[in-house]
C-alpha cells in the first residue's frame, strides 16, 4: 500500500476544493439562486463568504497536515515508535486560535443579526404599517391584508382582504409581515432575499425584508411540517406601490363580489 492513503486523502480533498471553485464560478450560482435582491441579503451573503473563506483555509490546512503525516509515516518501513504526553504549548495555542476565530465570527455577525432580528432597529414606517399577516398552515400560506387605507390589526377586521399563496409587497422599501402558524412549526423562507424565519403556533412573529427589484420570487416552507411539506409553495410578488394598490383594489372587488355585476357583464 505504501503511500496509497496519503494520495487518497489529499487527492479527495484537493478534488473537493477544485470542484467547489470550478462549480461555483464567478457568480457563485452554485450556492445561491443568484445574487440577493435585498440589502440585508447582500450582507448575509458577505457573512457566508467570510465563513466560507475561514473554513476553506482550515480545511486546506488540516488536510495538508494529514497528508504530511500520512506521507511521513506511510512508507511502510519498520521504525521505533516515540512516546509523548503531548505538547502543552501547542494545545494552548491551537485552543486560543480556534476560540479567537469563533469569537471573531460571533462578534462580527452581530451587526447583521441585530438589524435582522431586533425590533427596535426595524424601519419605523414598516413597523407602524405591516403589509400583511401571513398564516402558515398545512400546506399553504394564508395571507390577510388590511383593507385599503387601514392598518393591520391583530384580530380580523371587516375590511380585511384575504388571499392565499401569493404575497404582494411594495418593492424598494422595508416591509414587515406578521408571521403566524395555524397548526405546526413551519418556516417562512424567501431564498432570493435570504430570509428564513420559523412560524410557531401561538406566536406572532414580525419579519421584515426589502425587495429592491420588482419581480416574482419563491416563498417556500423550510421546516419539515408534514407529509405535504414539499407542496407548501407560495410566491412573493414585489411590485411598485401603485401596482400593488391596484392589485388590492382588484382583490377587494373580487372578495366583496355580490354576484350581480357578474351577471350584467355576461349579458
Amino acid at each position, binding site marked *: 500500500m505504501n503511500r496509497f492513503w496519503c494520495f487518497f486523502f489529499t487527492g479527495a480533498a484537493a478534488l473537493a476544493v477544485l470542484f467547489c471553485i470550478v462549480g461555483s464560478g464567478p457568480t457563485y450560482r452554485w450556492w445561491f439562486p443568484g445574487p440577493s435582491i435585498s440589502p440585508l441579503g447582500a450582507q448575509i451573503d458577505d457573512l457566508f463568504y467570510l465563513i466560507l473563506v475561514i473554513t476553506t483555509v482550515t480545511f486546506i490546512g488540516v488536510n495538508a497536515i494529514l497528508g504530511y503525516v500520512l506521507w511521513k509515516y506511510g512508507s511502510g518501513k519498520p521504525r521505533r515508535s516515540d512516546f509523548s504526553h503531548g505538547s502543552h504549548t501547542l494545545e494552548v495555542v491551537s485552543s486560543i486560535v480556534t476560540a479567537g476565530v469563533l469569537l471573531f465570527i460571533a462578534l462580527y455577525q452581530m451587526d447583521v443579526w441585530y438589524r435582522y432580528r431586533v425590533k427596535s432597529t426595524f424601519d419605523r414606517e414598516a413597523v407602524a404599517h405591516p403589509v400583511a399577516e401571513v398564516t402558515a398552515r398545512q400546506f*399553504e400560506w394564508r395571507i390577510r391584508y388590511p383593507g385599503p387605507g387601514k392598518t393591520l390589526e391583530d384580530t380580523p377586521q*371587516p*375590511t380585511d382582504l384575504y388571499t392565499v399563496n401569493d404575497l404582494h409587497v411594495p418593492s424598494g422599501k422595508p416591509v414587515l409581515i406578521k408571521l403566524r402558524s395555524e397548526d405546526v412549526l413551519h418556516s417562512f423562507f424567501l431564498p432570493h432575499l435570504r430570509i428564513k424565519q420559523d412560524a410557531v403556533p401561538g406566536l406572532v412573529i414580525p419579519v421584515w425584508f426589502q425587495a429592491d427589484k420588482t419581480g416574482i420570487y419563491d416563498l417556500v416552507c423550510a421546516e419539515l411540517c408534514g*407529509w*405535504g411539506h414539499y*407542496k407548501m409553495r407560495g410566491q412573493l410578488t414585489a411590485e411598485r406601490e401603485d401596482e400593488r394598490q391596484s392589485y388590492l383594489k382588484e382583490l377587494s372587488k373580487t372578495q*366583496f363580489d*355580490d*354576484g350581480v355585476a357578474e351577471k350584467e357583464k355576461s349579458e
Partner: protein
Amino acid sequence: MRVQFVLPYLMVGLAALLSGCGQPPPATFVLNKKTDELIPEARATVVAALNENFGNPNQLVAWQKFPINYGAAQPESASTNRHEAGWRLKEGRNLYMRHCMHCHGVSGDGNGPTAKFLNPRPRDYRQGVFKFKSTLAPLKPATADLTRVLKEGIPGTYMPSFVLLGDETLGLIIDYVRWLSIRGEVEIQLYNEFAAAGALEKDVKRAVAESEPKAKRSQVVADLMKTIDEELAETIESRAADIAEAWVTADLPESVITPTDKRVRPTPASIERGRKLYLSQIEGKKTQCADCHGPAGRGDGPNTEQFWPIPGTTPERKYEIVGLHDEWQLPQKPRDLTRGTYRGGRRPVDIYRRIYAGIRGTQMPGFGGTVLKTDEEIWDLVNYVLSIPFDGKESASPGDVQADSKEEVASH
C-alpha cells in the same frame, strides 16, 4: 482498512437496494363497497362494463359520451405526450396522481393513503355530489366552481390551494376529477339498476326459497342475468347519457344562482333584520338556523346534541356518534360562524348561494324561494352571518358603511 473488506459491504448494500426498492404494485381502481353486495355474476358484469368504458389507471379509456375534453391528437406539437388522442386525460391522471391521490385516492373515493389521518375526510367523488358550488341545489358543480376550489383551497379543511399550478394544469386535473366522478357514478347507477332487478345476494336467496316448483340457484341466477344482459347495453347508454347531461347542464349560465338585487348595505338595521331571521323571530319565516348553528352562531345548536337515525335502515338504526351526519354518513359539524372561516368562500355571493341552495350532501337546506322569498331577506341574513365574527356590530364589507353615501354603494 483493506480494500477487500469494503467489497462485502458494497454487496450487502446493493442487495438491500435491489430487493427493498422494487416497483410498487400497479395502481388499480377499487370497486365501490356497494358493488360487492351484488351476486358475483352481476358484480362481474359491473366490473366488465367499467373496464370496457373507463379502463384502468394505466390504460385509460376516453369514452366520448361525456362533456370532457380528452385532448385531440396534436401531431404538430413539440411535446411528444400530446401526439395521441386522449393526451389530456393521461396528463390529468399524472397530475392527479402527483397532487391529489394522497388524499382522494386512485379511484377518487376519498380513501388515499393519508385519508385516514384527516378530519374532515377528503371528498369521495363517486357519488357525483360536490358541496361548494354556485349552481342550483340539485345540480352538479360548474367547471368554474371546481377551479375555484382548487385555486382557493378549502379553509378549515386539509384541502390546500393549488393556485400556483396555473390555469392549464388545473384544467387538466379538473377534467380528470370530473371523469373519475362520472366513472364512480356510472358504477353506482349500475349497482342501483342491478339491485332493483334483484341481483342482491339476499334477493336471490329469497327468490330461490319462494320459487314454485323449487328452482336451483344457478337457474334463478341464469334467468336474472339473462334479463340484465339483454338490457345491459341500453342501461349503460341511458345512465351515461343522464350523467353526461347533468354535467352539461351544470355549465349552462342559467344553472348558476345569480342574485337579482345587489347586496343590501350592511347597515346595523340590515344586520338586525338578518339576526331576527337567523333566530326565526319573524312570523312565517322559520329559518331554524339556530337549531344547528346555535343561537350565537357557534355551531352548537340543539340538533348537534341528538343521535340521528341512519337514513335507509330498516329497522331504524341510529348513528353511534352524536350530532349531524352528511350524505357520506360521516359526522358533520354545522359551521361555527364566529370563526370567520368560510369553506365555500367568503364573498357575499358565496354566502348568498349557501343560503339560497343549501350545501349538497349535508343537512344544510336551501332557503331561496321557499322560506326566504326575496333577495333582500337573503342579503340581510348574509349581512348578519358576515357580522357574527365581529359580534354582530359590523359586517364584512369593503369600506366604512356609515361613511359611505348611498349612491357610492349603489354604483359599486
